[in-house]
């Protein structure tokens, strides 16, 4: 007889709803009796009764069980039925023995939904190939006790189960949080294709199947090609079907049969592995090309091994989690040490970059400090990272953010799925735009499969559908653009890191504030000092100059040529020193004078400066040209005037022949390196075609009191003009820069915020 559902159209999406606990038939290697416990009469019986126990279903239906069973069996059943409560949802072995015709049966009884269900499981006579179940169980449990970690435990478990039960392939199938699963361990006949590491979508072991494995741990299908033994009488429409959740003989879902047949599997044994009331995994045994039926006592041995394994799984899982937490704590310690050992957070993180990446088991890691500051492992382009940060910022992300599907949050991120399908991000400081980002690759790139992906998939009767390979492909499709999800331990680790970093950041900020205060105080002291010094130095200088002059006035007649030359020297030196002091005073004053911001028309300002310099321009025959239109800015008029007067004055001074000077503005695209490229800032230049500056001296030109030429060669210099320029520019939030070539001239640039 064929399985009735076989020809029906099978739709995989219906699996989660398929009522597999009420198939209305059983596997034909046993007999199922549904008995009314009140009258102890047979209500329904499987058609297999005729072949195994004798008599047609009609002979049994309605008959008292006592009349149909040998007295020894009946008395065992009756004894068990006295405590129906004990049998509720709990199949118990009530009898083993000859039921006539020389055939021995194990009888298992349980109560479910008000019915007493009796199952008769024939034990083949002369089958003494089975080892002593107590001994093998004992051995297996001892071996399992040796495992120190989960992978080893599961390897040993598959080996022991294969050894004790003799199936061709034994796998530990493990469930993930999303109920997809993968082959976590495998023992197999060497010629079989490995399934190790294959992942399967959650729909492969649908909800009803998972539920049954929780209720009824051991499930055996001795022959996939069994003839269905239909329950008699057929269920009248409108009545409740017989619930076979706890029955070991329960008929198999046609979809499952198809799946097994497609794999070439003839017989299976499956045991659910529970952890904390949930299905953690399964021990799945496959037998190929021949049927395999375990007697009741061997199934019991298998169940015992499973229970022992569950205990060890629980122990090793918590050990695994503890180890993982320990490793995290150790990593965090290493990171804290590195952070403590460096002045800046950035340097601290650079010193432990690998640990940071490993902390949360990421494929790549980025430290973002306004831009990509540090990177480790496989990470997307800086531009993409920037887009990711922009999205996080726009979400107002204040806490940890994690996803195993980045593309769902950042448009276009699917291009980077290979290395960045998943993201874990923590904002370190919004003020500093500081983020830590971890990336995980797409799962298809992170799972390994022992099988050969290039080998053509084996075709089942319905094509490639319902084969492990097809399942794997389907799973790969389901997790496209997705990474392995971030575990609790990893999320906790990143939170821990965030706390550590905020401490560092706090300390860093405190230190900076203290330094700033110190610096401000020093600057103030220094400015005060130079102002005072300048002032007090000027008075004696004036006195010296005056006395020298009085000497000349009062004793002029009596003085020799040499005396007069010496007096000239005193006068010259006093003036020089006076100029230096003036400069110093000016320089220190620049640091203290409050900035007065007002609209300044730069064109007018240059014209003013040129008119102040008119005498010099006339004397030198200089041509000063404004080459671009100049805007009006809101700035410090006096400061800007000082800058331009110094730069244009220098440009005229350091020339051979008639000086040619250009003043103008540089548009963003044409600015030299060292000048801001953004159009938030203006960049002005003063260019001469004079003597130029030796490249060796370029970096010192803005240094205070530093001169490049002796007096007389190009007029007099105090060496303070350019340092004044720099000081003003910096006070206005800009920068200075010079480019020069000896003999060709120099161009001085300075940047300026228009507001």
């Amino acid at each position: 007889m064929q399985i009735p559902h076989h020809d029906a159209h099978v739709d995989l999406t219906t699996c989660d709803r398929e009522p597999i606990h009420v198939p209305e038939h059983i596997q034909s290697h046993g007999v199922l009796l549904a008995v009314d416990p009140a009258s102890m009469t047979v209500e329904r019986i499987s058609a297999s009764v005729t072949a195994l126990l004798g008599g047609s279903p009609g002979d049994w239906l309605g008959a008292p069980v006592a009349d149909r069973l040998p007295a020894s069996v009946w008395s065992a059943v009756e004894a068990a039925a006295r405590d129906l409560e004990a049998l509720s949802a709990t199949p118990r072995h009530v009898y083993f023995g000859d039921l006539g015709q020389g055939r021995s049966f194990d009888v298992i009884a349980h109560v479910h939904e008000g019915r007493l269900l009796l199952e008769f499981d024939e034990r083949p006579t002369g089958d003494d190939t089975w080892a002593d179940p107590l001994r093998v169980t004992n051995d297996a449990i001892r071996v399992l006790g040796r495992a120190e970690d989960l992978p080893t435990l599961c390897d040993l478990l598959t080996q022991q189960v294969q050894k004790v039960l003799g199936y061709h392939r034994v796998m530990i199938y493990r469930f993930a949080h999303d109920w997809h699963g993968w082959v976590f361990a495998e023992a197999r006949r060497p010629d079989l294709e490995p399934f190790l590491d294959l992942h399967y979508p959650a729909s492969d072991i649908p909800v009803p199947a998972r539920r049954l494995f929780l209720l009824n741990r051991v499930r055996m299908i001795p022959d996939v090609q069994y003839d269905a033994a239909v329950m008699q009488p057929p269920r009248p429409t409108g009545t409740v079907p017989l619930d076979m959740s706890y029955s070991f003989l329960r008929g198999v879902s046609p979809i499952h049969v198809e799946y097994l047949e497609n794999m070439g599997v003839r017989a299976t044994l499956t045991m659910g592995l529970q952890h904390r009331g949930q299905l953690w995994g399964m021990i799945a045994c496959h037998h190929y090309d021949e049927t395999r039926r375990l007697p009741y006592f061997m199934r019991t041995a298998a169940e015992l091994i499973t229970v022992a394994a569950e205990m060890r799984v629980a122990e090793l899982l918590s050990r695994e989690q503890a180890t993982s937490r320990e490793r995290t704590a150790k990593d965090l310690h290493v990171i804290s040490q590195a952070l403590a050992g460096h002045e800046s957070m950035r340097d601290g993180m650079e010193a432990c970059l690998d640990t940071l990446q490993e902390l949360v088991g990421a494929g790549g890691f980025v430290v973002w400090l306004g831009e990509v500051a540090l990177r480790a492992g496989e990470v997307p382009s800086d531009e993409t990272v920037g887009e990711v940060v922009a999205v996080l910022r726009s979400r107002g992300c204040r806490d940890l953010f994690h996803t195993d599907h980045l593309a769902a949050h950042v448009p276009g991120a699917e291009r980077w799925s290979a290395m960045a399908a998943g993201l874990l991000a923590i904002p370190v400081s919004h003020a500093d735009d500081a983020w830590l980002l971890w990336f995980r690759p797409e799962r298809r790139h992170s799972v390994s499969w022992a099988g050969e992906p290039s080998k053509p998939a084996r075709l089942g009767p319905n094509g490639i559908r319902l084969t492990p390979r097809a399942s794997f492909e389907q799973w790969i499709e389901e997790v496209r653009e997705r990474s392995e999800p971030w575990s609790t331990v990893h999320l906790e680790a990143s939170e821990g890191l965030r706390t550590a970093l905020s401490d560092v950041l706090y300390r860093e900020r405190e230190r900076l504030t203290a330094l700033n205060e110190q610096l401000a105080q020093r600057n103030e002291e220094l400015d005060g000092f130079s102002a005072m010094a300048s002032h007090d130095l000027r008075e004696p200088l004036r006195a010296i100059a005056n006395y020298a002059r009085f000497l000349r006035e009062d004793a002029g007649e009596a003085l020799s040529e040499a005396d007069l030359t010496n007096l000239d020297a005193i006068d010259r030196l006093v003036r020089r020193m006076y100029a230096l002091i003036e400069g110093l005073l000016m320089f220190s004053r620049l640091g203290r004078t409050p900035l007065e911001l007002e609209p300044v028309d730069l064109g007018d300002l240059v014209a003013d400066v040129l008119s102040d310099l008119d005498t010099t321009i006339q004397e030198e025959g200089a041509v000063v040209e404004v080459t671009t239109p100049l805007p009006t800015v809101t700035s410090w008029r006096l400061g800007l005037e000082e800058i331009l007067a110094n730069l244009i004055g220098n440009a005229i001074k350091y020339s051979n022949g008639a000086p040619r000077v250009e003043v103008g503005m540089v548009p963003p695209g044409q600015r030299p390196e060292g000048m801001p490229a953004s159009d938030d800032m203006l960049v002005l230049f003063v260019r001469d075609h004079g003597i130029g500056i030796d490249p060796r001296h370029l970096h010192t030109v803005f240094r205070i009191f530093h001169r490049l030429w002796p007096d007389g060669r190009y007029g007099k210099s105090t060496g303070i003009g350019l340092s004044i320029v720099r000081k003003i520019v910096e006070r206005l939030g800009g920068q200075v820069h010079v480019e020069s070539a000896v003999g060709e001239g120099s161009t001085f640039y300075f940047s300026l915020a228009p507001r």
Partner: protein
Amino acid sequence: MPTPPHTILIVEDSDDDFLFFQRACRQLGMNLEVVRSRTADEARAYLDGLGAGAGWPVLILLDLNLPGTDGRTFLTEIKDSERLKSLPVVVYSTSSAPSDVQFCYANHVNAFHQKHLDFDMMKAELADILGYWTTRVRLPRSTS
């Protein structure tokens, strides 16, 4: 008929500077009665000791950086005093700090002049100051 010399009160701690001042005045041929105080307190005592009519200076020439009571404080005291505030005070200092200039005018100084390094320029400046305050301006009646 020669006019009686104008009295100038100069508050100047530096003997050198006072010497330059005297030399400049001499060279300029200024007919002045110069009263010199080395400190602000000395100057204040002098002013407080003046009775009605006689000896009132037409001008106080004030150095800013003074030992003891500072020239700035002295200025504010004069300008806060009902009895003294109509006396013209001209600051004559080596300081050219904008903050000093700002401070003095805010406290009603009548003029602020910087001492020049060059003696000729100093002389020219003093000629201007003294000439102006002794001949050009109309002053209130002597404080009584």
